[in-house]
């Protein structure tokens, strides 16, 4: 598989602030790659390093094998969907979408018919003559997408594109983006702080923390085998066990993650016993918070199984391999 984007020990320091600090990563062609992390973790700076709006202070960046340190943004075959969409307010939707072809000198008829094709692709066929100000947030998002696709980029960069949408629309757009990426087969690099979004859409996820990559892997690897406490905390509502607790439960004396759905409520053969602190009904099941010696554990009880009462004493048990040891930090 060809490598679309390659970072070799890339840094971007702003004075004493290390926005990106020694990042090495490979994005294979045709993958949906998510950069996940809290704000200020360096994920957006990484995206801007790919688009060319930031220059690294150290390391090498290659796009399809080509070193691109000195290539300005307008000469890179990557396009960006901006967080605030950045649509041109004075142009109608068709002209916005056709902009990339216009500046290349493509004649008006060709570029407008191409713009119409892309608008059809994002299901906005009949909105071509409107101005961006007349569109809803979701529609603007689609225009931004169509506009970024018109130059047929080999890599599409998306900077928190769904951040401004409400929940329902966001979920619909997640499905659509994923489908679109599979249909077009181009590489998507997607920046988000929403772990659910990253896990459900991406083929590969890089979790950023303080300018560095905390972990890189498939969503399943990230979710099930978090490498550090930070990843476990950030990616999901996992139980993070201290080294002492892990040792007490028969694991190695290292911090460990334990998924709530791996924990069973049992009568006999319990690893640990505790009192039910709180119950939270989630629809597909119930989250039970159990106070145990040394902390508390979150247990996910699937719908249909008996849910203990609040204040009841319960025994908990899990398979030894469900407890995943992590690095310190």
């Amino acid at each position: 598989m060809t490598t679309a984007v390659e970072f070799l020990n890339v840094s971007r320091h702003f004075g004493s602030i290390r926005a990106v600090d020694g990042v090495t990563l490979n994005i294979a062609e045709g993958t949906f790659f998510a950069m996940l992390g809290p704000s200020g973790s360096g994920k957006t700076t990484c995206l801007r390093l790919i688009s060319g709006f930031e220059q690294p202070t150290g390391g090498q960046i290659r796009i399809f094998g080509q070193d691109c340190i000195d290539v300005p943004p307008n000469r890179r075959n990557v396009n960006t969907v901006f967080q605030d969409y950045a649509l041109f307010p004075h142009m109608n939707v068709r002209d916005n979408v056709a902009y990339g072809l216009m500046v290349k000198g493509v004649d008006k008829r060709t570029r407008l018919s191409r713009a119409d094709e892309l608008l059809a692709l994002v299901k906005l066929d009949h909105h071509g003559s409107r101005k961006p100000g007349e569109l809803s947030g979701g529609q603007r998002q689609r225009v931004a997408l169509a506009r970024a696709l018109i130059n047929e980029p080999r890599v599409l960069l998306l900077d928190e594109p769904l951040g401004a949408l409400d929940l329902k629309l966001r979920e619909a757009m997640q499905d659509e983006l994923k489908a679109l990426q599979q249909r077009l087969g181009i590489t998507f690099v997607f920046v988000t702080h929403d772990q659910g979004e990253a896990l459900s859409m991406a083929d590969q996820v890089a979790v950023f923390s303080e300018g560095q990559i905390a972990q890189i892997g498939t969503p399943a690897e990230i979710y099930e085998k978090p490498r550090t406490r930070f990843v476990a905390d950030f990616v999901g509502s996992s139980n993070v066990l201290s080294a002492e607790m892990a040792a007490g439960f028969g694991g190695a004396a290292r911090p460990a993650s334990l998924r709530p759905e791996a924990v069973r409520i049992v009568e006999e053969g319990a690893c640990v016993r505790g009192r039910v602190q709180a119950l939270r009904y989630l629809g597909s099941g119930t989250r039970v918070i159990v106070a145990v010696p040394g902390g508390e554990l979150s247990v996910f009880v699937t719908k249909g199984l008996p849910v203990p009462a609040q204040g009841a004493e319960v025994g908990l048990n899990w398979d030894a391999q469900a407890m995943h040891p992590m690095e310190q930090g």
Partner: protein
Amino acid sequence: MRSDNRPPLILTAGAIAGLLFLHLPILLIFLYAFTTDERTYQFPPPGLTTQWFAVAWNRADIWPPLYLSLRVAALSTVMALILGTLCAAAMARSRFFGRDQISLLIILPIALPGIITGMSLRSAFSIMDVPFSTWTILMGHATFCIVIVFNNAVARFRRLSGSIVEASLDLGANGFQTFRHVILPNLGSALLAGGMLAFALSFDEVIVTTFTAGQQSTLPIWMLNELVRPRQRPVTNVVAIVVFVTTFVPILIAYYLTRGGSETAGGGK
């Protein structure tokens, strides 16, 4: 919706009186352009005539000041458009040490009394041995014209999403194409408004011009001189109508162009 909290009658009357006080004199100026009496402004005018327009048209001493005023206003507007826009672009796009202070310095000339601007420019010109000419007038006018354009442009820059410039570059446009297709169309009406106001301000400026003009006189200064001697007085009123129209129309257009949104059109002067 019915407005239940009407203002007290006295406030309404006061407001109307205030507005009349401000605007009736202007109407009187118009009226006296048509009077048959050429020496005194007696009320009511003894008779009405349009002969003064013809007289004004044929007076040779009106034309040079008019041309000078138009030339100065046009040139200082062009200068203000270029420099003011560049200033605004710098202030809006980058953050640097002393940015707010520089921004204040740019705006300062409009807050300074014209007489101070005029005196300081005059002494500066004489220290540097710069002879008074159209160019010295122009520089005096540019001090406040730049501010007008700057204020309008900076407000528009602030309202524009900064990433549209990046979006344009991202889509393959070069710097010139970005300016031509993205920045200019979005800045256009703000620049037009700023330019028209600058033109109007420059056209009827008196104080700074008095200090920087030397032997030449612009139209407002010609009028000032003309009022002193009681010969063909209504001609001055005819010229006043011309000045009024040349400055009021651009201001009106500027007002409509920047209406809505938090844009500053006048900026104080």
